[in-house]
């Protein structure tokens, strides 16, 4: 064993960098000791290894060898006490030792005891600084996260970083003895995104943050983005809110960082997101806090509120917004008129933006659907459509003109090829569904019926003829014997025929007479809304 000590001693004094493959260097000395073996799995290079190749193991087969090795570690620790780099490499060697009783971490524990807390932290920081550069550098390059969703993407990408005897987890053993899944913020503070993501996304650690630390973090945008992702990532049913989740933090997210954090957590909590399908205590608390802050804001007749509304994007943020109103029973009549007008304007501006982006969607290789029509079957999307009609009842003459122009932008897509036509159909279905939601509104007065009529007239003058002509070629429209099964791709068409049938049977139907007449002027088939039985 003295020979082994001499080799390690020499390596530790010579190494000027942290060498994660130091065990390879030891084995290259061709040392042979009974009961001590080196193994490197298959030694081949692979992207699934943190350093491209396995770090290797030193196996100690007998108890006397373990005792001897513990002694050597103590002696070397003493010898290199003032050389943190050598100690870091010594730690790597220890972390690669395989022996009976390894689960009790005898070697690491004795090293920690010997070095003391401060030195352990110093070595840990050195090791993390090295891991920041070396860990999966061959296979993983992550950009600097700029939004909550960027962080969530990195979490997802790290979820499969499985590695036996992960060097990152080994390093944690230097600075923490707890066996729970909570980790102090200070420990991860100097880690680059991938290392943090492995701990949060892959191993599922939660964060402990002290009050003074939290105060400091409030002023650090990058860390706030990270914290928001840590909260949103916890969508499992048994998750509970961490003690650092305070109203002031959410306020910071929503008020100071809407573009990078606020809107994304708003959508994850209230909009269409798989993360809010399971309800848990954490999400309940997030809902409550977001509601308290935004409710106050929405009711204030002030330009800041309208600046905030002017940032809403369609469809995601509008879906979140209206489902927030719905879930918290916020009456639209309680919203100041100026803010209502801002919401109407912003929706129309968003349609305008999407119309300007048509070239991007047409050229998108993977086929692109700016209206996310594949989500139309979601109740949250359908409720959003009803709210859109409700708010469009407040539309001005100028708004109507703008809507008409947007419809005229989309209309020529009906004349084109398959992709162009799909975009036109998605748009037309959205606009038609809005107009046909009248039967879900109650308490409308004459002026509001007029507003619905006006809106339907716009659609009739622009999109209706090509939509009706192309749509009635589908079996489920013309064929009275069709199975009429609802498919994801035909959800829009199905919702429209159902809405037509419901409007027809509803007392509001009399206000839709002109619209039905316009359909009749174009259609050939007996549309199923005329025959379908509504339950």
């Amino acid at each position, binding site marked *: 064993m003295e020979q082994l000590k001499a080799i390690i001693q020499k390596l530790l004094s010579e190494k000027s960098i942290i060498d994660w493959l130091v065990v390879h260097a030891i084995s290259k000395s061709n040392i042979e000791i009974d009961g001590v073996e080196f193994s490197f*799995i*298959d030694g*081949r290079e*692979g*992207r*699934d290894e943190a350093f491209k190749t396995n770090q290797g193991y030193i196996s100690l087969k007998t108890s006397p060898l373990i005792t001897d090795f513990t002694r050597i570690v103590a002696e070397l620790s003493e010898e290199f006490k003032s050389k943190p780099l050598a100690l870091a490499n010594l730690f790597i060697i220890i972390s690669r030792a395989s022996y009976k009783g390894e689960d009790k971490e005898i070697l690491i524990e004795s090293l920690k005891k010997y070095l003391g807390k401060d030195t352990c932290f110093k070595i840990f920081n050195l090791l993390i600084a090295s891991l920041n550069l070396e860990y999966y550098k061959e*296979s993983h390059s992550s950009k600097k996260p700029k939004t909550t969703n960027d962080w969530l993407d990195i979490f*997802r*990408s790290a*979820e*499969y970083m*499985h590695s036996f005897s992960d060097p990152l987890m080994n390093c944690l053993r230097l600075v923490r003895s707890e066996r729970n899944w909570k980790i102090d913020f200070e420990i991860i503070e100097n880690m680059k995104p991938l290392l943090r993501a492995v701990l949060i996304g892959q191993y*599922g650690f939660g964060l402990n943050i002290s009050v003074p630390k939290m105060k400091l973090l409030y002023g650090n945008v990058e860390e706030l983005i990270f914290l928001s992702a840590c909260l949103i990532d916890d969508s*499992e049913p048994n998750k509970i809110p961490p003690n650092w989740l305070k109203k002031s933090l959410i306020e910071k997210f929503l008020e100071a960082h809407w573009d990078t954090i606020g809107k994304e957590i708003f959508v994850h909590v209230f909009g269409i997101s798989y993360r809010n399908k399971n309800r848990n205590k954490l999400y309940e608390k997030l809902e409550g806090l977001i509601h308290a802050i935004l409710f106050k804001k929405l009711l204030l007749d002030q330009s800041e509120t309208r600046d905030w509304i002017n940032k809403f994007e369609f469809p995601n943020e509008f879906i979140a917004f209206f489902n927030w109103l719905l879930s918290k029973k916020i009456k639209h009549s309680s919203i100041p008129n100026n803010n209502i007008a801002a919401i109407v304007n912003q929706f129309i501006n968003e349609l305008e933006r999407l119309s300007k982006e*048509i*070239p*991007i969607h*047409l*050229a998108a*290789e*993977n*086929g692109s659907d700016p209206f996310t029509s*594949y989500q139309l079957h979601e109740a949250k999307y359908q409720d959003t459509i009803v709210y859109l009609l409700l708010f469009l009842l407040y539309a001005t003459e100028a708004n109507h003109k703008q809507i008409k122009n947007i419809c005229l932008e989309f*209309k*020529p*897509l*009906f*004349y*084109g*090829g*398959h*992709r*162009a*036509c799909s*975009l036109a159909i998605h748009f037309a279905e959205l606009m038609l569904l809005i107009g046909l939601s009248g039967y879900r509104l109650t308490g409308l007065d004459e002026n509001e019926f007029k507003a619905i009529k006006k809106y339907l007239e716009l659609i009739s003058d622009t999109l209706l*003829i*090509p939509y009706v*002509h*192309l749509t*009635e*070629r589908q*079996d489920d429209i*013309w*064929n*009275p*014997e069709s*199975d009429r*099964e609802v*498919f*994801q*791709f*035909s959800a829009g068409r199905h919702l429209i025929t159902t809405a037509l049938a419901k409007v027809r049977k509803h007392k509001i139907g009399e206000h839709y007479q002109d619209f039905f007449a*316009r359909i009749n*002027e*174009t259609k*050939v*088939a*007996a549309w199923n809304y005329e025959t379908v039985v509504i339950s």
Partner: protein
Amino acid sequence: MKTYPNASVLTLITQTDGSNEKLLFIYLNTIPDFYPSNRVHWYNGAGKDGKPNNVWSEFSIKQWTGCGIDSVMGNLFDEILSTSKLVIDGKEFHLTIPPFTLKSNGADPMRNRRETVFDSLKTENNILIPQEFYQKENLQFLSGYKIGSTEIKPFYPLGFFEEDFIYDNLKKNIWGIKEYRTAYLTFHGVRKTSQKNVGSKEMVGFYQQNFNSTSDYTVIAKNETNQEIGQAVVEKKTGFFKLSLSEPTKRGKVEILVNDKEEKTIEYVLLQDIQFDGHIANATFKDAYGRSHMITADKKTRPESIPNFTWQQNVYAEDKEANQKLSDLLKSIFDYLGPKILVADPYFIGDIRKDKTTTALSPSHCQTAFINALTHSAIEKGIIQINILGYWARAKNHVENDWIDSYEKTLKNFIAVNKLQKYFPPSSINFLNAKEDFHNRYWFSLTENEGVDVIDKCVIITNSIGNMSELDIMPVIDESQLRQIARKYTGIFTKAEIRLSI
């Protein structure tokens, strides 16, 4: 007033040559819209006031687009060719037009499966067309399917041409197309009364036409030997018709007569949606090839390994035998990998053939084998979920644009008709589109580890479902190879976007 579509869009692409414009391409297309006036409307920025859409300034390539009533635009098309002049708002543009031959598509222009019939203008060795205009990529920029060029602007209306429409026509020396509006006819056999391997005894259809109230519209079905096997009236109020046939049919033609004069004829092969005899009675499952399989508890155990295997279609005397063997082979893979499976194949499960008239979908022999194998394995061993991961940017050259619709329709119909909901509950079949390219085909098993799907077993498949004539399968046993493949594909899988969930 009836507002039945009556409009056409005419577009010309020209290149300035001195004081003349060389005509590079001309296209008249009927559109699903109504136009109220006899005047031609030239679009703003694409012809209005004689100002063209300067799509490619460097080569002086321009576009002119107008809209109007079908007949007006048809006459304008002819006039442009006969006078070699384009006149807009009093401004005259002289066109250089190559000598050409006009070809109507088919001896009888009304015999066509499309809604429209068309004339094409053809010139061998057309010297007017510049080299740049022959290049596929340039045409993709012009047609709007590629963006980001600083020099090329897209044609108006955006997406007017299908992606390679101009390119494909130029390859055939065609530079002009004039489409005529005809009524739209679609029909299909009634599935409920269809007999397997024999055909349909009833047919329903839709004739979308601006019906003349004083004329009578009749539909006649004929069999392969041109004998009438059914006749019915097209209901003018709805365009609907239903034919009772004197004999079951799979192949023949449907004719529409107006006051006994033929207006439209379509020859058809009724592609039958795959059907299983389906019912699982007395614990027996009858598969797509007519074989009965007992379902017993002792068959629930999954195989722990599978051998390497090679399948070649032409080794078998009969197609049916070959397909059965393929299906059994695929089933053994599903049995081995199940109950949670990931199929990674850039081409998904290939293109499902669709008849343009009847829109009936007809899976190929290996798609049927795949579905049969999946069903058999689901019934016998259980399948919780199968994820099919493809890469659209690669698949799009082989699979139709509406692949999601076709997959959804085929599989949902299949499950519904054969009452297999118990074995394929909602969300048990998912199609995912990868965000990054991959090439190889691997089928994996997924196991759940702390709520996360992890790749466990892997089988290498050498060919894609869709058009298979031979296939090698090799399970990956080497641990390090498996881990390497698994790492790459879990990454691709987790980042992929679910496009369809059945």
